[in-house]
């Protein structure tokens, strides 16, 4: 399994779980694969997979039924989108701003592009 060097592995696993939830492969209220099965299929230490599950539980995306395993919360897709949104605004956007400053790109330049982009995607 390939992991990138941008984020700790447990967060990359958490992202993978979130992606499965958003794509409805693991729908709300259904049991998801066990820590052990997920760890093995992603070729990572089960303790690292456990850490990803703990993290998602803290975020309210997963919940644990004692002796049964982990389940996606009823509002998991909304929670995932809220978490992604926060990360985009807090982490990814400042990176974009840094590049814009470095290259002298203004908000007006971006707005033109963004308008063109939304028109193109809504027309498609």
């Amino acid at each position, binding site marked *: *399994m390939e992991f990138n*060097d941008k984020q*700790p592995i447990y967060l990359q696993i958490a992202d993978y779980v979130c992606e499965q939830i958003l794509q409805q492969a693991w729908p709300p209220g259904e049991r998801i694969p066990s820590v052990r*099965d997920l760890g*093995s299929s992603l070729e990572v230490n*089960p303790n690292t997979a456990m850490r990803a599950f703990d993290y998602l539980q803290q975020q309210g995306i997963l919940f644990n039924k004692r002796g049964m395993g982990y389940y996606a919360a009823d509002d998991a897709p909304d929670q995932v989108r809220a978490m992604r949104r926060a990360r985009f605004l807090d982490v990814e956007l400042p990176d974009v701003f840094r590049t814009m400053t470095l290259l002298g790109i203004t908000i007006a330049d971006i707005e033109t592009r963004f308008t063109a982009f939304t028109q193109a995607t809504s027309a498609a």
Partner: protein
Amino acid sequence: MINLDNVTFRYGRKQPVLQELSIQLKPGHIYGLLGSNGAGKSSLMRLMAGLLYPTDGHIRVNGREPRRREPAFLEDLFFLPEDIDLPAITFARYVATMRAFYPRFNDEQFRAYLRAFQLPSTIGWLDELSLGQRKKFIISFGLATNTSVLLMDEPTNGLDIPSKAQFRKVVSAALLPDRLVVISTHQVRDLDALIDAVVLLNDHELLLNAPLEQVSQRLRFEISGRDLPADVLYAEPSLRGHAIVRENVDAADDTPIDLERLFNAAISSPQRMKTLFPAQKR
């Protein structure tokens, strides 16, 4: 649980291979044992397995002294050496003979591991296997013994590319809470997501024994611009600037660990490493 208390080991009257080593390894973890060539990794594993005896100090594996080689110790530990010598007997004969020494040996698991490594079920004579096939065979056997301690010296050496991924899958699945796995390796990229703790030997001493979670709380692995921060432990040039290791001031904000850089940082700044990761008190 493996406990080393002030263990020194030397061959004859030569310089010690390991000097006053105190280490505690706990079940439920996969330890990566790292060190330069000649740092004493293989000797350490052989000491734990009871194949070498400490010159000084004490070793306990689940409460037993390896050097006594009690049956209860031997049936609960599997050691996979780097070079595997298999006898000139058939596969079936080997398994029938050797499984008797391991009361928790599981046939079903053994067959599943062989399948995972795509070893043909028609193996005949063991001495006719290639290096890679010997490795796959003995890894499968070792995992199937279900011993609570599993020591593997360079297990991925000689494995082909798909088998390395299979190795990670099967070892991940085999880590139960009461099992302790130690893997010595130079191939850190093969195993960096599989291990969850690192034991680093340097200069015949223990330099670091820490869970990776703790490493990422205390150290940052970053790319820096032209000006290196003052607190940098280690820096190497990279395409995007300097790849650096520095102290982490915000434990909640952790960066992904690069084991190669961790290793280089540790051997280039051993004193700071020991201060950042003080040996556990007992």
